[in-house]
């Protein structure tokens, strides 16, 4: 079987730009850092264009290990959006926080991993893609090399991420033991003949380990312990990239695996994930309530949002998966926007992440304060923002599939979350800034990220129809009904 590179054109483009930026890095001087950033951005844009160009094609390649289909191509767009925004933030971060130029290369490598993960239809390919993604992220997390907490975060992430990979690999091995194949379609064919849980303990155990591995990667309770420290310690652009892109990649792959390889156990994994969803969103929100640091609060909030997203997976139906994709796009926009504001507040050696640092921001930087308030309201799920429609879509999928109770739990959680999101808004708008508050500087790329995400958050909240149509078309090849 020939390897049809054309099918993987978006991935190939990213790989090419990884090599180009690396080459410049090897040859170039300090001044080439900005050039690397812009080239990385160009690669992301080209890969996005390629994803759109090949839209509608469905093909398998690499001996049937990787699929190019609407679902994978759409997922590419989510990852590339997160990567593009992170690179723009990086253009500022290399100057402000003295980050090394490698961040651009690493973001591209991680994006490559995400894209492969979204397209993998073979468990070995899943594992390889996940490792490409994870190892790049470990290094990215520790990339603020003279900042103690960044290094600590990188170390923690590396060790716990290693655990997760081990679980995943173990699960894959058991699945192979039970079915004799790595191919998702093959597992489905074998598994369906095993029919019930009792007859297939090995396969079931494999699925459980696989789920645990993914739960680690996307930070679901009870495998979320690493998240707050890692998200707080990593440079803001990396946190934004991880919480949006890497999480999206995990969910996209999880849906593909569960739906392709384990459709006969929908009820079982559906209920397991429903329970995990309740735990994840409740734990994330409860823990976020007491946070004094905005960045750490956002870390916990990202756990809570993972909980809402799991609902869409748990309902195990087409509307649910479509709602997950929509949620991922919306979450990427509002969350990256919020982290961009966090980054704008910081300076070298002074993160300025406390709630107190935001006090009276409306009088110091009205635009930034307004954008942050918008992101907070969107994350809380207030209407006319993308966050509301994202929740509405997930909840309606839950109601339709008989999980109305799950939607009810989730919306009670959303109310709890409103409290800590509003607190940030209240600080910014109702408080008087300290006289010695550090000046806040917003550079052009960072301002662009904030403005773009803010506008998109409102736009999607008001006029989501084109995107929804796009998603519903993307989901069609995955779920055949």
């Amino acid at each position, binding site marked *: 079987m020939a390897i049809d590179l054309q099918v993987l054109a978006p991935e190939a483009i990213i790989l090419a730009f990884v090599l180009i930026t690396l080459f410049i890095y090897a040859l170039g001087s300090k001044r080439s850092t900005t050039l690397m950033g812009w080239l990385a951005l160009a690669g992301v844009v080209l890969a996005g264009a390629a994803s759109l160009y090949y839209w509608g094609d469905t093909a398998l390649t690499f001996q049937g290990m990787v699929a190019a289909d609407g679902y994978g191509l759409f997922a590419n767009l989510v990852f590339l959006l997160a990567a593009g925004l992170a690179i723009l933030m990086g253009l500022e971060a290399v100057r402000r926080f003295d980050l090394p130029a490698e961040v651009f290369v690493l973001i591209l490598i991680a994006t490559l991993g995400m894209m492969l993960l979204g397209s993998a239809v073979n468990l070995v390919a899943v594992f390889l893609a996940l490792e490409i993604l994870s190892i790049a992220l470990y290094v990215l997390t520790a990339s603020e090399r003279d900042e103690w907490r960044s290094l600590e975060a990188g170390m923690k992430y590396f060790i716990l991420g290693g655990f997760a990979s081990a679980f995943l690999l173990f699960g894959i091995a058991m699945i192979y033991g039970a079915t004799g194949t790595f191919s998702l379609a093959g597992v489905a064919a074998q598994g369906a003949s095993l029919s019930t849980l009792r007859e297939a303990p090995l396969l079931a155990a494999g699925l459980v380990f696989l789920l645990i591995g993914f739960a680690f990667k996307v930070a679901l309770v009870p495998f979320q312990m690493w998240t707050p420290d890692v998200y707080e310690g990593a440079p803001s652009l990396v946190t934004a990239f991880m919480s949006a892109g890497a999480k999206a990649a995990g969910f996209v792959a999880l849906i593909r695996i569960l739906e392709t390889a384990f459709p006969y156990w929908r009820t079982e994994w559906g209920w397991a994930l429903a329970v995990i969803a309740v735990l994840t969103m409740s734990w994330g929100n409860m823990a976020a309530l007491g946070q004094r640091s905005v960045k750490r609060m956002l870390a916990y909030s990202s756990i809570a949002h993972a909980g809402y997203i799991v609902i869409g997976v748990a309902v195990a139906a087409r509307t649910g998966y479509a709602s997950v994709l929509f949620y991922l796009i919306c979450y990427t926009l509002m969350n990256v926007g919020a982290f961009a504001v966090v980054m704008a507040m910081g300076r070298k050696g002074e993160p300025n992440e406390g709630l107190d640092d935001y006090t009276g921001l409306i009088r110091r930087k009205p635009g930034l304060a307004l954008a942050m308030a918008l992101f907070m309201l969107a994350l809380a799920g207030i209407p006319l923002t993308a966050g509301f*429609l994202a929740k509405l879509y997930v909840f309606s999928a839950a109601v339709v599939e008989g999980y109305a109770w799950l939607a009810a739990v989730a919306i009670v959680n959303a109310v709890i979350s409103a409290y800590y999101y509003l607190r940030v*808004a209240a600080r910014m708008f109702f408080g008087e800034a300290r006289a010695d508050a550090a000046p806040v500087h917003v550079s052009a790329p960072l301002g662009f990220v904030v403005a773009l995400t803010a506008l998109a958050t409102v736009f999607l909240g008001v006029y989501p129809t084109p995107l929804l149509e796009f998603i519903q078309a993307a989901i069609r090849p995955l779920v055949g009904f």
Partner: protein
Amino acid sequence: MNQMGFPLLTLVVWLPLLGAILVYAFRREQVKAVKVVALGFTALTFVGTLLLWAFFRSGEAGYQFVDRAAWIPQFGVEYALGVDGISLFLVILAALLFVVAVLTSWRLLRSEGMRGYFALLLFMETGVLGVFTALDLVLFYVFWEVMLVPAFFLIGRWGGAKRVRAATKFFIYTMAGSALMLVAILALGYVVYSATGAWTFNVADLAGLRIPWYTQLALFGAFALAFAVKAPVVPFHTWLPDAYVEAPTPVTILLAGILGKMGVYGFIRFAIPLFRDAAVYFGPTIQILAVIGVLYGSLIALVQTDLKRLVAYSSLAHVSLIVLGLFAVNAQSMSGAVFQSVSHGIYIAALFALLGALETRKGTRDIAAFGGVWKAAPVMGFFLLIAVLASVGLPGLNAFAGEFVLLLGVFKAQKALAVLGALGMIFGAWYMLTLFQRVMQGAAKPEALADLTGLEKVTVAPLLLLALVFGVQPNLLYSIIVPAVEAVVKAVAAR
């Protein structure tokens, strides 16, 4: 298309938002221009709502001026606006009170951040008008929730000493109350979907739907909770005193005059007609809570020493009486309730505007600090007298025309509840007249208070005039309200 051949209602709803954006066309220092823009847009919106009245085909029960368009077809969510006899006067009242709010803001506030203030106020007006006109449940929920945002910032930034706490409490309480309503709306949509195979949240399509009993109970519960928090109904009222007292006067006027009516409106527009069996089943329970609200609010009002707090609790008692009337579910009690919603909005706005004037002059809200104000400020005294008399239900003024019909309707159904509700009116006379006496009469305090300014007179006088007109000619309203209410009553009776 509607009877105008022109999307008048859409224009009325979105005009304030346009104003909110235009406010930013001016520089920060051009405070006067910003105020004029805000006044212009609220006034224009008010004129628009009067046009609705002028072209309204009275005697018809259905929705008029309906504007429909697809919004999110994937979810079956529509952009659908319309008014009927129930909502028409609430829309007009809302538009009127926003004009009053802009006028009371004129001198009350410091000049800093005025663009933001008026932009938020105008944004809120679009939200409020949207709530009263939305015919699609999801759209209704969108307006319902969005309206909280400007209210939060208005209270939190321009309110009194404990403003941040009050703003947060207001936001979280209302959001918590209405959270489950969203799930209920989706579930209702699904009930229709499983019956017809098409997604719709349009009220007209949902009317007459047969919903299984237990589903009805759950859905009614979720809707009723949202509206009970908003109105508020005891025991969901604890946000009310904080928010009413801490908010700046113009926002208090809006909170008491129109925002609470959103809860009342929700009951009569959605909760009762959609879940008819559950509404009848739960009706007596809610009525008992309402009677408790009437008596509790009145008794607490009796012992208040703070001007705004006293009137805030009186407002709780009055709104509870409205809820009592709604759930008697007959044409009289419900028409009276709708009428009284409008008339309460009128005199409570006048009361809070006058209390605001007193507070700015004296720098305190403590009743004991006032006395003999009439001598120094006779116009203010006269205006307050009319507002107080309207609020105690003096025949010839609007509250009487509402409460009398309302109680008559309740009396036909449940005599004991009507008697207890009427007791609230007696208490009302007691605490309101005491308030008037202690502030306006008795020995004058040494420093004389200035009388109402021309602007304040212009602000309050039309409200008092309306109280008189509607008191003498209640049929102006009833002729339009009754047909719409009768349709609801008929639907409930035919369940």
